[in-house]
């Protein structure tokens, strides 16, 4: 029988990062991935000869070279990846666009500060106080008990519009809980988006995945694609054997799963977890991607990198009642990063919105395709209210489009209910009810793309290398 010191379930960001750490230090490690493509929730695919990114709009946590002690520096060091290899380009600038107010922000925190002062002059002292509390919040406080981020923010901010505007990007880029967040996670997201910032390799997520795969292979790690785990067998409170989709059996001393906590528990035969349903993710999303021959700036859409929009004065971050919640979303224009002399060949506009899993999964195949067409147009109409008016007819100029839904996410990542941010309750130390089974990735609790890699690193360090 095949035997490994460590078996990792899933070749996404966290699984690959964990694999690199373990292979680098001589562990016999194998990553099992059911999909044919690596990347998990942050991946890419080809359609009609064109490559589309899924997941990642931008790398969060960007800091300039030389800034010490931040998550980006940590993951690059731990994975032995240099900044030159990653070749990140910074965002031009982003916006939080609500019907009644607009706040610009960039990788320079002073811009957001001055914008808050301009739009909410009476709130600026409170905002600075909140930022100071977040800056001094200890990194290690991941084991702190749940504390409502709304309640902490309200100690500093009186205007509920500003409060919602600050929550909107932080929730959209990582929160698995509705309407409120745990304060420690709010701190992580606030730092990663507002205090640090956005950047992107010219080639998008592919660049990052290629670097991770290359490191893993060179370190001697083994990777089995098209090879899912269908069952985990247990004895004496331990995982004794992994059963592959083709029925073959594998043994491993330690199993690290990035499949999600309820998804992993479901693999364990005879294991009844009472809270399995509560553990399932509540929030799903759709994303539409439109491709144009011309650059977005030619349409008059300006140079916004990412726009977090919301109609009306109240922001609701909840499971959508409608098929798609058109009231809020995220517009990402990958062309609008500081690539210098280089540029993307085509214009790309991506729009992400909250979506209802049950409705998307309920459509028959023909209906599903029709709904995609219908909602793509409606999403575009909603989002375009928050972009400068176009001088050209967008529909005539569009040369291709695609849309993914909660159904797509579930089909290719096997994350329950297509919930990209996973379970509302996280296992921050990565331990499970089985001695040699650990979770990393979305359900471990570090958020965002840098967080997912940090999760794989931290779990490999803590439960394998240090043990």
């Amino acid at each position, binding site marked *: 029988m095949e035997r490994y010191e460590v078996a990792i379930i899933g070749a996404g960001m966290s699984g690959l990062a964990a694999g690199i750490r373990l292979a680098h*230090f001589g562990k016999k490690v194998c990553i099992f991935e059911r999909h044919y493509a690596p990347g998990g929730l942050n991946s890419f695919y080809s359609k009609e000869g064109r490559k589309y990114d899924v997941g990642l709009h931008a790398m969060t946590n960007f800091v300039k*070279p030389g800034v010490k002690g931040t998550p980006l520096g940590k993951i690059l060091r731990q994975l032995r990846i240099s900044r030159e290899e990653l070749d990140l380009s910074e965002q031009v600038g982003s916006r939080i666009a609500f019907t009644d107010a607009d706040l610009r922000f960039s990788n320079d925190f002073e811009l957001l500060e001055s914008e808050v002062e301009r739009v909410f002059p009476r709130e600026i002292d409170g905002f600075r106080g909140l930022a100071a509390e977040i800056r001094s919040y200890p990194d290690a406080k991941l084991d702190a008990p749940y504390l409502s981020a709304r309640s902490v923010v309200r100690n500093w901010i009186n205007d509920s519009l500003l409060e919602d505007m600050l929550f909107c990007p932080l929730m959209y880029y990582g929160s698995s809980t509705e309407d409120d967040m745990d304060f420690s996670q709010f701190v992580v997201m606030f730092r990663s988006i507002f205090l640090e910032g956005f950047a992107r390799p010219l080639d998008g997520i592919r660049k990052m995945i290629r670097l991770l795969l290359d490191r893993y292979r060179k370190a001697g790690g083994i990777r089995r694609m098209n090879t899912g785990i269908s069952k985990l067998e247990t004895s004496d409170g331990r995982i004794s054997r992994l059963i592959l989709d083709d029925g073959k059996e594998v043994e491993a001393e330690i199993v690290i799963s990035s499949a999600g906590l309820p998804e992993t528990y479901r693999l364990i035969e005879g294991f009844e977890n009472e809270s399995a349903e509560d553990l399932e993710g509540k929030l799903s999303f759709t994303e539409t991607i439109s491709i144009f021959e011309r650059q977005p700036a030619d349409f008059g859409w300006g140079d916004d990198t990412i726009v977090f929009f919301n109609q009306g004065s109240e922001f609701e971050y909840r499971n959508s009642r409608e098929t798609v919640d058109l009231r809020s979303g995220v517009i990402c224009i990958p062309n609008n990063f500081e690539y210098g002399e280089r540029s993307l060949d085509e214009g790309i506009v991506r729009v992400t919105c909250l979506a209802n899993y049950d409705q998307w999964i309920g459509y028959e195949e023909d209906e599903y395709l029709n709904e995609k067409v219908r909602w793509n147009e409606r999403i575009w109409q909603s989002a375009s209210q928050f972009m400068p008016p176009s001088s050209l007819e967008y529909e005539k100029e569009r040369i291709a489009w695609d849309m993914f839904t909660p159904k797509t996410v579930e089909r290719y990542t096997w994350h329950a209910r297509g919930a990209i941010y996973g379970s509302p309750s996280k296992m921050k130390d990565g331990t499970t009810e089985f001695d040699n089974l650990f979770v990393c990735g979305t359900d471990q609790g570090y958020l965002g793309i840098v967080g997912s890699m940090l999760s794989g690193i931290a779990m490999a360090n803590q439960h394998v290398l240090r043990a």
Partner: protein
Amino acid sequence: MTNDECKKVVLEIIAEIAPDEDLSDVNPDVALREQLDLDSMDFLDIVMELRKKHGIEVPEADYGELASLGSCAAYLTPKFNALV
């Protein structure tokens, strides 16, 4: 191996795990953490690289011995010399 050679080995490892740090002027008598931006993950890597590259084992109880370059040399030099 001399103490100075041992310090060089440790600096080579730090240069590899933290290529963005300036190691030209490390004071051997001051804690590494006070001079360089190293966290507990980096110290784990120093220990792991010592094992991987040189076959030196540092049990967790002894991690404190790696605090400064000087204490590294005092602790590790006899271990290196015991290898041959």
